[in-house]
């Protein structure tokens, strides 16, 4: 991810649609990227950015969220980095399933499970200084006989 673009935003919800627009524009640089996968990526990145923004609730407004976006021949990689307090991802989603009984009793907790379903790869690195979520979506091979 030395190449590609970097976007820094204030940790405010109003910037979410801008982040989505950037990711869509970046992915559009690869014409092989299919519409459905673009939707998946857009939603996954939006979820990661929403969590990042939430994690800054107790930080000064100068602390930014960083979104990095890299395209290579076979994948698009997006990294969302916050300076929030961090968390333990293993403790959050023990089962990862969305359709357990009683699931509707609370209104949150969809974000990480959704990201796991939408992205082809996801890595969450979290520590006291912040969290980095790395999302990878594969692009189809550019030859036509797929």
């Amino acid at each position, binding site marked *: 991810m030395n190449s590609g673009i970097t976007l820094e935003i204030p940790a405010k919800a*109003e910037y979410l*649609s801008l982040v989505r627009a950037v990711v869509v524009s970046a992915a559009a640089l690869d014409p092989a990227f299919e519409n459905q996968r673009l939707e998946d990526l857009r939603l996954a990145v*939006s979820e990661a950015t*929403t969590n990042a923004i939430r994690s800054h609730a107790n930080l000064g407004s100068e602390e930014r969220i960083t979104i990095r976006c890299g395209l290579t021949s076979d994948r698009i990689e997006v990294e969302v980095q916050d300076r929030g307090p961090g968390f333990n991802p293993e403790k959050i989603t023990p089962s990862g399933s969305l359709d357990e009984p009683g699931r509707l009793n609370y209104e*949150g907790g969809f974000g990480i*499970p*959704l990201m796991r*379903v939408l992205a082809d790869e996801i890595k969450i690195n979290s520590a006291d200084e912040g969290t980095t979520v790395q999302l990878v979506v594969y692009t189809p091979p550019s030859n036509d006989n797929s």
Partner: protein
Amino acid sequence: MLGITEQFRDKWVLLQISGEIDMATGPELRQRIVQYVQEGHLHIILDLAKVDFIDSTGLGVLIGGLKRTRSHGGDLQCIGLSESLKEMFKLTGLDAVLTEKDV
């Protein structure tokens, strides 16, 4: 950006939603639903045909609306789901509770 227009049909309020439902715009929709229920409009239909994007906080608003209306003896239903919205409802198990209604 979120657009909401309302129509009253029999005992139903039909809300046509346009734009994006996310952490920025979700609270407005939540507030509207709370208000309808307070005013006694307990049956709400959301037409999502013009919604370009909805994320998990948007789903949270729908679930919250469902619980709120039902706990008062009403209901909340969604119509006009695009393919990708249907997909998302399936992914989250919401399709089982937020069914489409023929209006």
